[in-house]
């Protein structure tokens, strides 16, 4: 990179060294965007452990919400990055079934090798994301509207093409043992392999946001897009890359669902639109951008999945789950606002050396 830091050793040497403590202080704790979401997750975990009984705490119970969490989580991570950068992507709701249908039609209906179906599904994801990104930066229309449009366009395209090509809105897919093992198997008969893909995605996205230059660019863009561009950040390229990653992840989930369930439906996947946003917002990401963390997104995803599945282990009617999620969402946002304000105003009252 051309604009590296010019060191000024002489000047720096004369200045008093900046004191810093390695001890985690109240300030550093309160400054973490995920404090609120941690409290929320612990609360729902305790709630369902009490009301869900032994079954909820069993391996089977854990698997039921971890499976939901892993599929949602793979999509929520890039959606979280997009939101931190100040954007939304609703089109994932159509991307999931579009990808499922792509692999099912190519490798199921036409009998092509499964690799072809997998690559085509993921390639479609990258293409849709690229189109979303280019539309957003070229038209300067808010991404909410742009991806709402592509959500519908892609849904229509998937339905239309599926009927033309396969004559049906639901296509069976038989995949070989390798594809099954990689994308569509249950470990110990309970845990989807998607769980491992989610863990991998968490590590990658966590690295990007916290430790890479790209992560700093994402935070800056969400904070103030114009200033970020003035500071030399290639905001257009970052935007396109982020939209490509969310579509890619959605297509990954669609593809692995088709392999897991041995079939694909045109209408599956719409629930991911709101669920991913809910998970991300419960996770402490600021809807207007500039603030958020990967740990928070993971916690938000787990919270959502626990409520969504835990309700079946209680004596309550499953319909109450939506009420809980609604209340939780509101509570989480209020709590996150409070913690954010505390983080902004926090300054050590005592002299740092005295601590």
């Amino acid at each position, binding site marked *: *990179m*051309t*604009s*590296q*830091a*010019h060191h*000024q050793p002489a*000047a*720096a040497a004369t*200045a*008093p*060294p*900046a*004191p*810093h403590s390695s001890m985690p202080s109240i*300030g*550093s704790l309160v*400054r973490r965007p995920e404090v609120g979401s941690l409290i929320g997750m612990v609360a729902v975990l305790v709630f369902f452990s009490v009301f869900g009984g032994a079954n909820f705490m069993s391996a089977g119970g854990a698997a039921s919400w971890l499976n939901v969490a892993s599929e949602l989580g793979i999509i929520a991570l890039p959606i979280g990055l997009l939101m931190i950068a100040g954007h939304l992507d609703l089109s994932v709701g159509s991307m999931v079934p579009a990808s499922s249908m792509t692999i099912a039609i190519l490798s199921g209906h036409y009998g092509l090798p499964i690799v072809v179906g997998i690559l085509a599904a993921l390639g479609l994801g990258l293409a849709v994301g690229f189109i979303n990104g280019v539309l957003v930066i070229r038209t300067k229309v808010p991404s909410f509207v742009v991806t709402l449009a592509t959500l519908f366009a892609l849904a229509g395209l998937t339905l239309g093409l599926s009927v033309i090509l396969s004559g049906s809105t639901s296509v069976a897919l038989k995949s070989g043992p390798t594809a099954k093992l990689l994308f569509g198997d249950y470990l110990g008969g309970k845990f989807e392999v998607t769980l491992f893909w989610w863990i991998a995605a968490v590590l990658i996205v966590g*690295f990007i946001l*916290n*430790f*890479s*230059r790209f*992560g*700093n*660019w994402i*935070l*800056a863009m969400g*904070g*103030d897009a*114009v*200033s*970020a*561009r*003035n*500071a*030399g*950040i*290639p905001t257009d390229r970052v935007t396109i890359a982020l939209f490509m990653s969310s579509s890619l992840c959605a297509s990954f989930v669609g593809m692995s669902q088709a392999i897991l369930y041995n079939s694909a439906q045109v209408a599956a996947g719409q629930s991911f639109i709101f669920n991913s946003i809910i998970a991300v917002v419960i996770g402490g990401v*600021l809807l207007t951008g*500039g*603030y958020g963390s990967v740990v928070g997104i993971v916690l938000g995803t787990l919270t959502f999945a626990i409520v969504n599945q835990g309700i079946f282990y209680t004596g309550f009617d499953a319909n109450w789950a939506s009420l809980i999620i609604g209340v939780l969402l509101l509570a989480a946002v209020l709590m996150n606002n409070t913690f*954010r304000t505390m*983080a*902004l*105003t*926090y*300054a*050590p009252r005592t002299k*740092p050396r005295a601590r």
Partner: protein
Amino acid sequence: MTTPLLRLTAINKSFGPIDVLHDISLEVNRGEVLCLLGDNGAGKSTLIKILSGVHKPTSGTMEMDGRSVAFDSPRDASDHGIATVHQFGGTFPLMSIGRSFFVGAELTRRWGPLTIYDRKRANEIAVTEMRQLGITRIDDGDRLVGGLSGGERQALAIARAVHFGASVLILDEPTAALGVKEAAHVLRIVLQARRKGIAVIFITHNVVHALTVGDHFAVLIRGAKAADFRKGEKSREAITDLMAGGEQMAELEAEIESFSATDDGHAPHGASHA
């Protein structure tokens, strides 16, 4: 005469049908402070946005060190050594001081096979550079920028520009939102930069600030350069008149006085009962 560090020749800028700048020619020298003065909407910010690569001029040429340049992006301009603190924004409220200091030029270190953001060193440098500018209350680079005062934020933005070794430092109304003490700080920073041989372009509406640091003054009136003079060539009254857009400040003052004279019958009531 030595060649000026930066020379603008016949710069024009229009946004669609709106002409904002007409035929601006200007020279900026090393180790000098150029005060860019003018009324609201005169085109000062637009001119410096051209210098910092945000806008492209509609016509006209720019030279640095006698060589013709054209900036494709803000990045391009900063690679040429032009650092700008824009009138609005420039800092990111919800980012840490360290991260915000290095936005777009992140400090990294090796970590095994990976290159990662060096949080500790970024924080240290940011805090140290701010101390150099007299902001000593900040000692934790993890603090969020949104918790800083206006003056501290301004200092952060300027410290950043100075740190990256700019040869031209552009400050768009850096003292506008500041208290007396903070403004004095900023003026001292400007003089420090000048002593280092940096060319400073300083935009202000404050005559006292302009006269304190300026070596060279250019006045824009409705997008055209109305005056260009050096320190001591014009009286303070003449400069004030020019800054008011060429109107006679004395006349304005007389007008204001006549307002208060006609208001005399009412004003004291409100004032005395307040």
